[in-house]
């Protein structure tokens, strides 16, 4: 086999091996690069900063366990920022399989780290079936949809819920999502009920949301690991996402290297054929 043929037809297992090494090695030998903050990430940060201390915000966790490596870092960064500003957080999830557990875990761990108390500083409303009915219903009364929190405690007995019963009572919604529910948060909660919405989504979803950003229906977007890393930089707490960017950088470079090699082989073989 000629060298050009080798370059154009690498066994895909070699590619997989190099990708695996690019992900694993930065975990043992961390590499970090200075992160530049994009406008769409800064807008979310600015929106949160503009709220007075003690404001109440809503953070829905519309994420499946499958995308956690990408979405959890940005979720944690947003929750940390909220707790740093002493915001109260009302959370829920329209993902029945795993959503409430993820919400519970992230809020408890970050809440404990900041000395926040469940029911006073944050609440997990849990899951209710039929997200369209849930999102629409909460516009008139959260209690009509969630009479109790995730563990069955009546909302009326929770201090945080004394002043909250509809979207009008929360000052900002930061929707974390890995699926189409984000568009319902924008079109129902944002457009219909007038809530200010920011989005934290997977990197592959972010381009689709630029339309809403342009139209002013979204305040800002945190897109995937990079969005999370940028946010960690803004709140000056580089953690999971910043570390993950080392692996992401290396993987991107490996993919580019393979594309370049493939093209060198392709162009060379085309020239060889033309010469023959």
């Amino acid at each position: 086999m000629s060298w050009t043929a080798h370059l154009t037809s690498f066994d895909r297992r070699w590619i997989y091996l190099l990708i695996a090494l690019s992900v694993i090695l930065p975990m043992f030998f961390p590499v970090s690069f200075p992160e530049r903050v994009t406008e769409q990430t800064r807008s979310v940060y600015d929106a949160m900063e503009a709220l007075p201390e003690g404001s109440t915000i809503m953070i829905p966790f519309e994420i499946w366990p499958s995308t956690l490596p990408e979405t959890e870092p940005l979720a944690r960064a947003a929750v940390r920022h909220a707790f740093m500003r002493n915001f109260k957080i009302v959370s829920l999830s329209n993902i029945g399989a795993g959503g409430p557990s993820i919400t519970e875990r992230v809020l408890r761990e970050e809440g404990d780290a900041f000395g926040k108390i469940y029911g006073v500083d944050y609440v997990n409303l849990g899951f209710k079936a039929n997200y369209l009915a849930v999102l629409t219903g909460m516009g008139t009364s959260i209690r009509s949809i969630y009479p109790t929190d995730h563990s069955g405690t009546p909302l009326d007995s929770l201090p945080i819920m004394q002043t909250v019963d509809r979207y009008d009572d929360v000052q900002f919604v930061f929707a974390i999502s890995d699926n189409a529910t984000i568009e319902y948060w924008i079109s129902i909660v944002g457009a219909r009920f007038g809530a200010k919405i920011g989005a934290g989504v997977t990197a592959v979803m972010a381009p689709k949301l630029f339309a809403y950003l342009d139209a002013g229906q979204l305040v800002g977007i945190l897109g995937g690991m990079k969005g999370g890393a940028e946010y960690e930089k803004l709140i000056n707490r580089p953690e999971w996402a910043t570390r993950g960017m080392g692996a992401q950088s290396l993987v991107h470079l490996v993919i580019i290297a393979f594309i370049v090699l493939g093209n060198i082989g392709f162009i060379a073989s085309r020239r060889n054929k033309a010469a023959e």
Partner: protein
Amino acid sequence: MMRGPIPVAVAFLAGIFMVISFFSTNPAIERVSGDFLNWVSIVSGFTILLGVVSIAHANWSKIQRRKEGWPYAVVLRVFRAGMLVSGFSEGVETGTVYDWLFTNLQAPMMTTMFSMLAFFIASAAYRAFRARTLQATLLLVTAIIVMLGRIPVGQAINSNLPDVTNWIMAVPNMAAQRGIIIGAALGAAATALRIILGLERTYMGRG
């Protein structure tokens, strides 16, 4: 499946009512449309039985005939029974056996499948991004710019790369996506209209 005029009439009335509810803020109409949506959830819940029966049938025949890989069908049945028993016996809330099984078995498996995308996109990109034509070359160059622009190394190579990447995502990419979305939305609207009017009966087995 029932194929007479009744399902067509139900589809027509439900469809028209949901259209009406979009144009109304009347509380009674909103309440009824909310009920319609709740019925969807309830009906969906019952249809899961269809899936359970289908998978049970396929697996049972595999085990009976000792087809290749039949022990995996046994594993599937054991775990499905385990999830069912744990879910029905003490619920699915945080701290239950069901939640433990979900968090420690299913969630890592789902995450693993999602992470496979990194490997698959690498091999697909290597194979697909070849400078065969002018358009393919443009696609190739754009992909490399965006990949570099999304990582800090790109910024180190050229400080303008992140801005160029953002422009590609926000302008040409967005324009193309909007075009696709508009066309697809019209297609979806025409399909919905055919369903409401009973012209489209694919779901009843009639093309």
